């Protein structure tokens, strides 16, 4: 009795059909995710087009090196995830569990850095809503009026006039985009934990590695979202 049929659901004719269905299903789900995030990107594009100076100001307040490190961490986690899938495909249970573990670790590092960044932003009073205020000790960008026409009021600044309201918009997008992304990371890590437990029990093999593969697809997608977020949020110069 082959182990592959042990995982065959009753409504499928064979494992091949089940695997194809799982793959197509996950890709369709990822398509919905593209459109889910895409709406936010569309809004971002609109406001960046209208308020370029404000977006520069906002972006300068983000730590480019933390963002860059986080990007590297996530790309590395995609590598370990791909290797985990490969290990499952080649019936290497230990390898699967190990690489999944690395992916969880790297994902957690990412979230840790993000948490630090958020905390910092809260302290700097750059969280949109009642908290938001652009002024800071020693910071020249302290505009009392919100209509954006204050270049003459502060001729020392190189930037053309911008409104603090527009900068608040930038941070709305920053928090919405990275917050949504982080939520997806948390869910991904939770699923990975479940998979590690299953991998250590030897659940996955060349006959049945579908859950690892489709979780991998989800993980890579979340990575791709960040690949776009990083330059669009951190690198506006």
């Amino acid at each position, binding site marked *: 009795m082959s182990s592959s049929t042990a995982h065959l659901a009753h409504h499928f004719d064979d494992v091949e059909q089940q695997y194809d269905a799982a793959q197509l299903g996950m890709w369709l789900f990822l398509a919905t995710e593209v459109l889910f995030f895409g709406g936010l990107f569309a809004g971002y594009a609109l406001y960046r087009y209208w308020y370029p100076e404000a977006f520069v100001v906002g972006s300068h307040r983000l730590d480019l090196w933390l963002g860059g490190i986080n990007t590297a961490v996530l790309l590395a986690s995609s590598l370990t995830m791909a290797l985990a899938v490969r290990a499952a495909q080649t019936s290497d249970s230990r390898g699967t569990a190990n690489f999944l573990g690395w992916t969880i670790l790297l994902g957690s590092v990412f979230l840790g850095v993000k948490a630090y960044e958020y905390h910092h932003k809260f302290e700097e009073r750059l969280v949109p809503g009642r908290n938001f205020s652009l002024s800071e000790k020693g910071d020249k960008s302290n505009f009392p009026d919100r209509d954006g026409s204050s270049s003459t009021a502060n001729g020392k600044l190189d930037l053309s006039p911008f409104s603090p309201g527009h900068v608040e918009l930038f941070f*709305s997008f920053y928090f*919405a985009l990275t917050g949504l992304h982080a939520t997806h990371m948390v869910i991904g890590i939770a699923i990975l934990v479940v998979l590690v437990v299953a991998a250590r029990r030897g659940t996955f093999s060349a006959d049945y590695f579908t859950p690892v593969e489709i979780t991998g697809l989800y993980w890579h997608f979340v990575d791709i979202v960040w690949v776009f977020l990083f330059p669009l949020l951190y690198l506006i110069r």
Partner: protein
Amino acid sequence: MTNSPADGRNYLNADYRFRSWLLSTDHKRIAVLFMISVTMFFFVGGAAAVLFRLELMSPRGDLVIAETFNKLFTLHGVVMIFFFLIPSIPAVLGNFLLPMMIGARDLAFPRLNLASWYIFMTGGVLAVGAIVIGGADTGWTFYTPYSSTYSNTNVVVMALGAFVAGFSSILTGLNFIVTIHTMRAPGLTWFRLPLFVWAHYATSLIMVLGTPVVAITLLLVALERGLGIGIFDPKLGGDPILFQHMFWFYSHPAVYIMVLPSMGVVSEIVTCFSRNRVFGYRFIAYSSLAIAVLGFLVWGHHMFVSGQSIYAGMIFSFLSMFVAVPSAVKVFNWTATLYKGSVSLETPMLYALGFIGLFTLGGLTGLFLATTAVDVHVHDTYFVVAHFHYIMVGGAVMGYLGGVHFWWPKITGRMYPEWWGRLSAGIIFIGFNLTFFPQFILGYLGMPRRVHEYVDEFQVLNVMSSAGASILGVGYLIPLAYLIWSLRYGAKAGDNPWGAQGLEWTTQSPPTTFNFPETPVVEREAYAYDVDPATGHAAGSA
């Protein structure tokens, strides 16, 4: 030949425990769960309509105050659209029939299917909860900045209800697409599929590609109200028109989610009750896909007077003309199918014919609205209200009722009483036209929509409309009564009481849990009505 086991077991009596229903992954049971849910929501939305049509019988606001009136039409829109029209045919008839029509034992992801129902009910609890704690008054369209900043009502809860329901829709669509791609029976090529399947495939594409956008949009409104993370707030430089773009990017294709499945139902019914192959099968199949794709390119026709650029308005108006073409193709082909057919007017056929006529009228008035120069005058008037009700009620709801009646023997194993069926179809037709035709005139004369007061000249037409609504309400209550009655007292149905073609009719009524004892092999095209099943040759030949 039937597939019935001798012991009379079927999916309904396979297990009587309550939890066997609430934890069922059988697509047929889940379809029944959805049927009960959407029926409840239909009557909740209908109750709101009764109240505001009562208010509108007199020109002054005397039954309810303005804010309450606003909450009533918001409730009506949100519940009818998100909790009845969008799920109804796909989650009830689609869920039940799709696997059977392709010879499968279930959908590709049965547990996701069950999750879809629970998510749907969660959204419903949120929406009804919003109503109970005081309602929202933004209209189902949630336009900013009123919804995001200035309204003092329960917008967040209502918006979240719709947001959650959207995920139910996405999962259904995902399930259908994967099922149709990977689980067709041997020999069942794409062009042998029933047109009902094509219609649901196209619908599912829209569900998957469109719903996430309205989901993020509503989530952003909720975030703006709740956390102040504002992107639509004009005080910060935000653009309310951005909301409208993102909202209508889904909500226009959503109307095709609501009507395409109905068209699939009509294709099945018209062929069966004219005993004819469908005219132009491939054209109808392709037109479903064309509607799905073109439907995504026209959303700005809801925004001609919003402040979007004239140039964009021109593009959207131009493209909106094209989307009428595939719908017209279907209407022509159904008509041609009727031609020289052996037509019989059972209840499902009455609903299907009603669909064809009323949808055509509604669709034609859509062309008026797509013409910018006309729309400038009738936007936000009752003309628009009449237009979409002709499509949604005269079209989608009648398609749903026709489908429920057509497949009732298959779903329940019982026949409904035919005379009562025809009577209610007639009452609904008359009530519907009396309700909504006067609204075309009202809109043309300039009565705005979403108002609880109006000038005296409009009263006669409003009274006609409200009278029609009461007739329509009665028309809907009668099937509710006799369909429930038939569950116990209806005549027992055989496997194929209509003599229809289609794999679902080769199973017993009601079907067994796994539909087919063995996977069927398909060797014929769909709607082979002129083929004698016994000989495989044209009926009447030697």
